[in-house]
């Protein structure tokens, strides 16, 4: 699955945006995986993710769902998707996952150089990479970069509408919504759990002064 692969934005912004996926695989380690997945989920919670969902529940922490409810929902084969807003948090999560040695596939999506550094520091041996060669075809129909797509591409399924982004920017600009609340509004439609509201808050702070509102 490549839905986290096309996150756009500056390298500086992507420095604070990493996704981590826990993927049990059918026919390989799907059966009897539930207890292992629960332990991995606990590790991820302890590391302080910006967003996290389990596919058994599909509700992110900002929807009001509690940690125990998510843990209780875990079944064999549940996948866990999460984002971190710092390299250090991700590194700590990976270090503890390595120690736990649950045998479930872990995929990290982020800047290649940073992942390379982390792998060396905690002595992991990544074996496969998925490179994005970009978006092609009718790119004229995409929203304009970079101000909108850096938000919308944070949800891999394109569930964050560019019009919602514009609406939130406008509300923030007018003082009707603060940056964090605006970020949570943007994170709400994302059911894949990889929309990073901390990055979104930062992007809103950077963008709001530059955005022109035609009617107050």
């Amino acid at each position, binding site marked *: 699955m490549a839905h986290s692969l096309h996150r756009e934005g500056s390298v500086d912004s992507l420095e604070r945006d990493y996704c981590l996926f826990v993927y049990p695989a059918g026919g*390989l380690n799907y059966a009897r995986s539930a207890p292992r997945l629960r332990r991995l989920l606990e590790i991820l919670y302890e590391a302080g993710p910006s967003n996290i969902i389990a596919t058994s529940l599909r509700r992110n922490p900002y929807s009001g769902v509690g940690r125990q409810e998510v843990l209780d929902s875990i079944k064999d084969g549940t996948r866990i998707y999460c984002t971190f807003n710092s390299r250090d948090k991700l590194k700590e999560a990976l270090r503890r996952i390595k120690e736990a040695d649950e045998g479930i596939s872990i995929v990290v999506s982020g800047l290649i150089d940073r*992942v390379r550094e982390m792998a*060396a520091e905690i002595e992991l041996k990544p074996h496969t990479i*998925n490179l*994005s060669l970009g978006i*092609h075809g009718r790119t004229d*129909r995409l929203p304009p970069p970079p101000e909108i797509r850096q938000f919308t591409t944070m949800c891999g*399924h394109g569930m964050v509408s*560019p019009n919602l982004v514009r609406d939130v920017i406008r509300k923030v600009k007018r003082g009707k919504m603060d940056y964090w609340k605006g970020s949570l509004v943007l994170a709400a439609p994302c059911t894949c759990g990889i929309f990073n509201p901390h990055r979104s808050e930062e992007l809103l702070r950077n963008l709001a002064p530059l955005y022109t509102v035609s009617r107050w």
Partner: protein
Amino acid sequence: MRKSIFSAALVCLLVLVISLPWVTAARAEEKYSSRQINWYIHASAGGGTDIFSRMAVIRLRRILKVPIIISSIIGVDLEDIQKITRALARAGIHEIEPNNPIASMIKDRNTGDLKPESLGERVLSAIIEIQVKRDRLRPVLRAVKGVADKVGSIFCLDVYTMLEPGVKVPQEILDTIRAEGYSWRPNAKINMGLGRAWE
């Protein structure tokens, strides 16, 4: 099994033709919802998705008090998929992953033609997965580039490959990508090598 797949497959590609849920023409400068809403669906008129949408919109119009127009726009026409499968077939690429749903729609692997009953249908998104040896990456990339401006939707192109020690992407892969006029993003998905099989 996973190990044998990895050793056999040096380069794999994903051509993800995705829908355009973020493509709308509306501006955001007005209070929601003060204007007509365009409700885009990926399915053809008369199908279940279309009927459901029309039923939902009847009630929604009363609540939001604005016109809501249903259009079958989002998604990709399978004829667009056929353009890509044909271009790949012309380039001698027939290694579409057999477990990929697209593979079951292909009528003739030599020409890349889809089954006639598939044409005219729309899907929300589709993935074409191809697994080739490294030396055949070049014709795949070239074929995809050649057909890109003929596809009526957008698509993402990914390459995945085994890493060399030290999280190094094989230079041969990078050289090929560059030579065919593509570039790669600084962020990527990386399997950290922590999984193992017990089934």
